[in-house]
């Protein structure tokens, strides 16, 4: 495969974005392209481990790092962009760990050697980039403003960062990226949304957890956390909640009918991805941004508001 051109970036979609979260995948690609960067999928990717391998030592690091190898080997890129916060966490965790710990690096390289897929050893000289932080740092708010053709005037949005985009800074280095986003009070999504012409609301649960990690075996916890987040956002006057993670979507969007069943109408609010709103403001149709995919039916409020 050809190496990347200057306006291209190696991209890791992950299992969720390639399947049920295509809305996030497609809209991420659309808006990146509009902002001047083409996201090129790495061939032959494998699952990042989704946090379920953490008690398995270096095997948990092999999962994401094999993809870093693919990016370097096949696309000639040290860095890898991704939109899923869980993948982002797994990649940055593994990179941070092997950078700091020689034993763990050798253990990972042992697995690489035995699998025999690549000729060289893994060297932790690249970075994982979350799409939000990546677009913010590489292109910036001005580039967003420049591309807005349909301002989202009158749309009140509750930005939801969740956990792993900004935490923990020992792994994400959120505070050390070219321009920093704060781990406790991140701002990048706020700035993007405001650049789109939307209004952001403060509701206090911006970096709360959705309980997504245990959502299959511990619905009870996840539902309680999500119900709190949704009702707080609703109370603050939000029309929609904007996300940057497909796991959050699983908990807040896909499960919303069950949450409403349990906690009532206060826990009902349309959920969208940040990149869907960006695509809409950039002039793409609601179909192109796949708003119809969301279970919580954001199309209703978008139509009502005349977007």
């Amino acid at each position: 495969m050809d190496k990347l051109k200057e306006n291209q970036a190696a991209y890791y979609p992950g299992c969720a974005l390639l399947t049920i979260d295509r809305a996030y995948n497609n809209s991420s690609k659309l808006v990146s392209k509009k902002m001047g960067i083409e996201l090129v999928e790495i061939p032959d990717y494998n699952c990042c481990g989704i946090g379920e391998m953490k008690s398995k030592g270096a095997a948990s690091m092999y999962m994401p790092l094999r993809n870093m190898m693919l990016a370097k080997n096949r696309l000639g890129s040290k860095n890898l962009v991704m939109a899923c916060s869980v993948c982002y966490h797994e990649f940055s965790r593994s990179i941070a760990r092997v950078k700091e710990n020689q034993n763990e690096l050798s253990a990972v390289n042992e697995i690489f050697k035995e699998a025999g897929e690549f000729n060289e050893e893994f060297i932790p000289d690249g970075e994982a980039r979350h799409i939000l932080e990546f677009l913010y740092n590489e292109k910036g708010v001005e580039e967003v403003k420049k591309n807005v053709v349909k301002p989202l005037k009158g749309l009140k949005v509750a930005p939801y960062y969740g956990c792993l985009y900004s935490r923990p800074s020992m792994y994400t280095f959120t505070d050390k990226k070219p321009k920093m986003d704060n781990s406790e009070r991140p701002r990048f999504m706020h700035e993007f949304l405001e650049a789109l012409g939307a209004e952001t609301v403060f509701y206090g649960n911006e970096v709360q957890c959705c309980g997504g990690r245990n959502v299959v075996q511990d619905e009870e916890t996840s539902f309680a956390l999500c119900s709190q987040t949704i009702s707080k956002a609703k109370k603050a006057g939000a029309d929609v909640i904007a996300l940057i993670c497909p796991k959050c979507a699983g908990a807040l969007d896909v499960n919303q009918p069950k949450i409403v069943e349990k906690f009532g109408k206060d826990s009902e609010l349309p959920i969208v991805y940040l990149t869907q709103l960006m695509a809409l403001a950039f002039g793409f149709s609601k179909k192109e941004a796949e708003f119809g995919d969301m279970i919580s039916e954001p199309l209703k409020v978008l139509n009502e508001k005349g977007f």
Partner: protein
Amino acid sequence: MALEKHDKDKENSGGGRPVAEKGEHIVARHLIEDDNIKEEKNLVIDGVDVSGRWNTFIISRVDSDFDRSFFEEIKKTVAGSRINRCWQCGMCTASCTVTPLYRRFNPRAFIYMMQLGNLKELKKYIDVAWRCVGCYKCSQRCPKQVNPAEMMEALALVIKKYFPEEVKTKLKLDEEVKKIYEDMIIGHGRLDLAKLHTSAMQKSGRTKELLGKIERDTIFKMAKDGRAFSILRLGKPHNWSRSKEAIENYLRKLNTIENGEAGV
């Protein structure tokens, strides 16, 4: 917003004193067994009558006879490698997402029990210990970079090794779901979210729910818009079997508690 009512909550909720909801669990003294609390009706200390004020004490819990080997065992794992750094400040518990929901979930205390190898205490918390949602608030705020979020992973390993019976009964679902994940991640190299959901529902005896309206609506929607088929097309990475073998080999050779099979 507590989801779990501890029996002691009621008995000990301040003895009739007005207590704000937030303060209830402080008064409720979860982590102190009743036997360890000594209450005196009338108490005179150094000739001063302190009755009614200072009459509740905790029996000294200084534990000097603890088992170091346990600590070393945890330190050898990737997740638990920083256990030695914890100075018990409690920031992790104060930050925790889960603690307000399940008040017996107390990462600081769990780390303490692991440091001392106090299996007797740990055993009492098996039913809540697995509830960590991996949100990393604790790790973000821990002043000693202990990484308590991952210490909870180490805790799971400890429980798995020392309490296999309880794992089979109390943590059955959690273990089964983990197994589904692992089989897919290691076995296929990619995650089939639909299969994950349905197998987990089956394992938890909720197959019937899959036929309920909410589930049916979602499945129908995804079949209609084509997403259900994209799951079928997900496939495997080329030559994944070589990675799979290498990972399994690595896990087999591990001589830490991370090697679940051998129960080292």
